[in-house]
């Protein structure tokens, strides 16, 4: 049988819902990650976090028992920071304190850009109006991602997406989305290891952000049935996903990748 992968050189891996759910490791993930490392494939961890800085993520992952280095982690927060730096703009930041660490050293006086992450304490009229007036004056609108809502202990809660959408409506300006599923997000993570999209596969639990986004960016995508996965999610894709690319969990994804890698050689 021919390999499903033309010439695989890198694996992008989602964190929450794929390796762990909050403070619980998804069974088998730690060992599977170690096996994957031995294969020599380049690994990058790509996540749409907007509340947690990279150092916060790393300390949680290591306390759970994962062996992951700082330079391997790509977050949408850091992607927003690099966009802010490359545009040379001064952002008005919709971010909670935990996340501000990743923006240390960025000039924020007299803002000429609006960066929206998950910031419940700022999603109220006065901050929204301030952002709107900046947009009227020509500021860029940057969304860390556009998730509609997320799950908390108290139930569903509004994510940044609705507030980004509201600002887009009022200002007539389309936001630039930096996290998954933006193709740039995947390609930046890959260019860091010198790998082309067609030489990489993304593993994640979010069918649209992880798998759909990866396919749009020219990667392959493997959907794991953990985390936020719900039965039939693969049917939401506009692209066709071979059933062998839908697996029970991260350990099964690694088995699949390693088996295909064997047939590739």
């Amino acid at each position: 049988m021919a390999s499903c992968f033309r010439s695989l050189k890198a694996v992008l891996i989602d964190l929450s819902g794929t390796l762990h759910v909050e403070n619980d490791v998804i069974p088998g993930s730690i060992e599977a990650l170690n096996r994957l490392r031995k294969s020599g494939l380049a690994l990058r961890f790509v996540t749409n976090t907007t509340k947690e800085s990279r150092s916060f993520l790393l300390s949680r992952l290591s306390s759970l028992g994962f062996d992951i280095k700082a330079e391997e982690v790509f977050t949408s927060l850091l992607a927003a920071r690099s966009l802010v730096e490359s545009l040379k703009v001064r952002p008005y930041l919709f971010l909670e304190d935990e996340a501000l660490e990743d923006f240390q050293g960025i000039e924020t006086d007299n803002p000429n850009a609006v960066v929206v992450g998950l910031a419940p304490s700022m999603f109220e009229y006065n901050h929204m109006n301030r952002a709107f007036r900046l947009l009227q004056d020509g500021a860029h609108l940057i969304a860390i991602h556009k998730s509609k809502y997320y799950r908390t202990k108290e139930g569903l809660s509004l994510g940044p997406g609705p507030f980004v959408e509201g600002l887009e409506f009022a200002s007539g300006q389309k936001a630039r989305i930096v996290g998954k599923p933006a193709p740039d997000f995947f390609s930046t993570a890959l260019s860091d290891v010198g790998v082309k999209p067609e030489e990489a596969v993304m593993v994640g639990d979010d069918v649209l952000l992880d798998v759909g986004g990866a396919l749009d960016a020219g990667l392959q995508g493997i959907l794991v049935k953990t985390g936020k996965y719900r039965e039939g999610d693969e049917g939401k894709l506009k692209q066709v996903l071979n059933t062998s690319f839908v697996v029970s969990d991260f350990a099964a994804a690694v088995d699949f990748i390693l088996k295909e890698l064997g047939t590739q050689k």
Partner: protein
Amino acid sequence: MLPNYTVNIMAWLRSPIKGVMLDISGVLKNGNVAIPGSIEAVQRLRKCGLKLRFVTNETQLSRHDLTEKLRRIGFQLHENEVFPPAPAMVETLKGLRLNPMLLVHPKVLIDFKDVDQSNPNCVVVGDAAEHFTYERMNSAFRLLMELKNPKLFTLGRGRYYLEEDGLCLDVGCFTTALEFATGLKAEVVGKPSSSFFATPLKDMGLDSSEVVMIGDDIESDVGGAQKCGMRGVLVRTGKFRPERDENHPNVKPDAVVNDLAQGVELILSSESFKSLIKHE
């Protein structure tokens, strides 16, 4: 280009005008300040016997308080000439036997005093301004996600309006946010909804072709009025922005005038209006 433009300017004055609907914010006043010439312009319309109604998406004040506020600024008008969304919303809720969760400004609550708000089975969003908090948005969102037949109403869908200190976000921003989160489409009670314009039209006893609507919102005022057969005139006051509003992709005003005073002057000096007066 110029001759064509002149023809267009005249076209809206050719058929008889028997009534005028006026938007309030951005046409009569900005914030608490009358727009120069507008107090006199309203008086001139009254003297000439034209029927007059004030049709607004204002939901930061009750109908009564809004009327009082305009009187204090210097306008002469009666509460029953003012048509804001809240009373229309109350009628809709009663007709459908719905209990709302009200995401509105506290000052407009009095208009909803006879509405049962226990066990809510729909959400009504108004211009709550600084009362838009994450907690209130989230409660509305959770209710809409829990309901078997969720219904979302919005008192207008404006993008922004002008206050004394600058442009301010209007209800549309927050309604759009809830629509995006829930996947629902909100029903608009207010301009530009045709059924909202129908009430003041009926009250005037005029056909829509006999009425001109004057406003500073190209979509809610001009677009909405044109959709139900009125002429829609845009003023260059309030939130008006030439680069955006004079080349709107979907709405072409019947006329663009500098302000209400100029619009009224044009109406009263038009041949069709003068001949109407003569005949009566």
